[in-house]
């Protein structure tokens, strides 16, 4: 039982990070109808920038954090401006493929920059472990998890109560209708890319403070897509639930199945779950069922 609770808690902590990455994908999909793989790179670069500002540059962490978020936002803005804006009006699949081309472009640069090494953040988060009656809870993960939840809350508030958030929701419903009420859809696209890039950047910092900055960080972008599909591509609560569920499933299945089949369950559990979910609920747990007309 204790084992199970421990796995559950670790899964929950990890799931919070997955939820953040999934949220970045969902944000973009909600308003632009483009599922983005590029956020995996924004995340990886966010983590790397943070390492640069904190380590070699030696800045205090609040300044490094702000600079990193600015850099991530800028990266999202540039990606949207240079590639995706030109594809407005083209088939949506072209936009999806462009994000994966962008992914590959930045992947090469990222691998060049880190030079095959693993970089860890110097003294940023508390490293100790909390104990609750036999359960272990690393403080780093707890802080990351709480950050993820707070960010989710902020996003929800932003969408619900600000004017820009209202515009974002309107253009998510219908681009033409939004445009005709005076909302600049292009501007909305820029804003949503910047916001989602910042979310991805936070996700990158939070993830890398647990796993260090290393070569497989961009692959989390695929995890993000998985989470987003899990919860349904249009649903922000779906991303939260999907991420948490995925983290728990991965850890619990790895904890119980690894001894039987000899390791590696964690890498594949997410994908098996995804296939099952897509088989029974093709549009995810909370996604909108699309009714097509010819």
């Amino acid at each position, binding site marked *: 039982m204790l084992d199970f609770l421990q796995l559950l808690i670790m899964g929950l902590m990890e799931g919070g990070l997955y939820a953040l990455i999934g949220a970045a994908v969902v944000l973009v999909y909600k308003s632009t109808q483009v599922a983005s793989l590029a956020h995996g790179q924004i995340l990886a670069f966010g983590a790397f920038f943070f390492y640069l500002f904190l380590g070699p540059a030696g800045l205090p962490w609040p300044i490094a954090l702000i600079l990193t978020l600015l850099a991530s936002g800028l990266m999202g803005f540039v990606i949207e401006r240079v590639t995706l804006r030109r594809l407005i009006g083209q088939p949506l699949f072209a936009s*999806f493929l462009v994000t994966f081309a962008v992914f590959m472009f930045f992947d090469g640069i990222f691998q*060049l920059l880190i030079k095959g090494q693993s970089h860890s953040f110097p003294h940023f988060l508390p490293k100790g472990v909390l104990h609750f009656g036999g359960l272990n809870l690393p403080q780093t993960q707890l802080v990351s998890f709480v950050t993820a939840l707070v960010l989710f809350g902020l996003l929800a508030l932003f969408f619900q109560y600000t004017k820009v958030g209202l515009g974002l929701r309107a253009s998510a419903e219908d681009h033409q209708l939004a445009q005709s009420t005076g909302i600049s859809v292009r501007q909305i696209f820029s804003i949503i890319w910047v916001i989602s890039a910042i979310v991805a950047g936070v996700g990158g910092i939070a993830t890398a403070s647990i796993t260090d900055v290393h070569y497989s960080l961009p692959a989390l972008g695929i995890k993000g897509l998985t989470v987003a599909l899990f919860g349904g591509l249009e649903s922000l609560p779906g991303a939260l639930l999907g991420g948490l569920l995925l983290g728990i499933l991965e850890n619990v299945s790895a904890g119980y199945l690894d001894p039987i089949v000899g390791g590696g369950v964690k890498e594949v559990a997410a994908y098996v779950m995804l296939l099952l979910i897509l088989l029974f609920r093709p549009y995810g747990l909370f996604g909108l069922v699309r009714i097509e007309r010819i």
Partner: protein
Amino acid sequence: MRPCGVFDEKYTQDIAIVRTWQHWAILIGALILVYLFPFFASYYLIAFINITCITIIVVLGLQIVSGYCGQISFGQPAFMAVGAYASAILTTKVGLSFWLALPLSGVAAGIFGIIGGAPSLRIKGFYLAVATIAIHFVTMWLILHLKITGATQGLNTTSPEFFGYPLDTDETMYFLIVTVMLIMTFGARNLARTKVGRAFVAIRDNDLAAEVMGMNLYYYKLLAFFISCFFAGVAGSLWAHLIMVVHPEQFTLNHALWYVGMIIIGGMGSIPGVFFGVFFVRVLDELVLFTAPMLVAWFPWLGMAPASSLSISAFGAVLVFFLMFEPRGLAHRWEIFKTSYRLYPFAY
């Protein structure tokens, strides 16, 4: 499109792929050149062409399922791996001849592809694309953890024999690979013109409309996956017997991204496009490989071995460029060139 004043009088003329005596001359000349190639080319070039031809077979399969049938699949390397492993197991453990194992590994990959293509019955677009990524990971995980596939050790294979003559060098394998590639290309080219091929195109353009018009959507989608995975399996079998060892590291998700990129650069839904795309990307890759040491000499901070990273970046940049400015790929340019040549000196 026929030039002005050319009329087909018989049905056989109308459907002929090779139409005029000039076509025949070019075709036969090209075939002779292709088969004489190993006698005057360097070892490096032959090795390059071998890998390129295997890639062409895989990408032909991908073109059928993605370019013609519209079901984007990132699972192609996994299906290729299934073919490669099937071939390795059939030749070394079961003791079949390579010539039987080659089509059988294609069929094995094809049957596996039907299972892998099953999600396409309910989902499409990027839902399907991500589902095929999931299938890729699950397949590679299975290969890594099953006893029969040799887990992390991989499997060793033997050289095929041609009437007692072992095909154990790149030069001799060249003849086998090129022959198989030509047969597969011919098959793919003809498939696109049959009832099945037209059904694929209809499904790509609007699957709902195709179904309303009486096509069995499930049958044709699964058939597309079967055929495409058959191609991947055959290519995997050739790969296994060319490299002589199969290992999970040879079939990564990056390869899937490269293959999809190749059909985009070449042109979706066009068989010549496959050749353009594969050659373009492979040559780009080699160019980066050559220029990387020079770049390092100029910019020492790039590190010791930037070639693989640089080639990924270059590929990504080219792909972005093509998607934005030439979404119909090099095949479209080729069509424009052919038409203007045919109509010269008139504009249209």
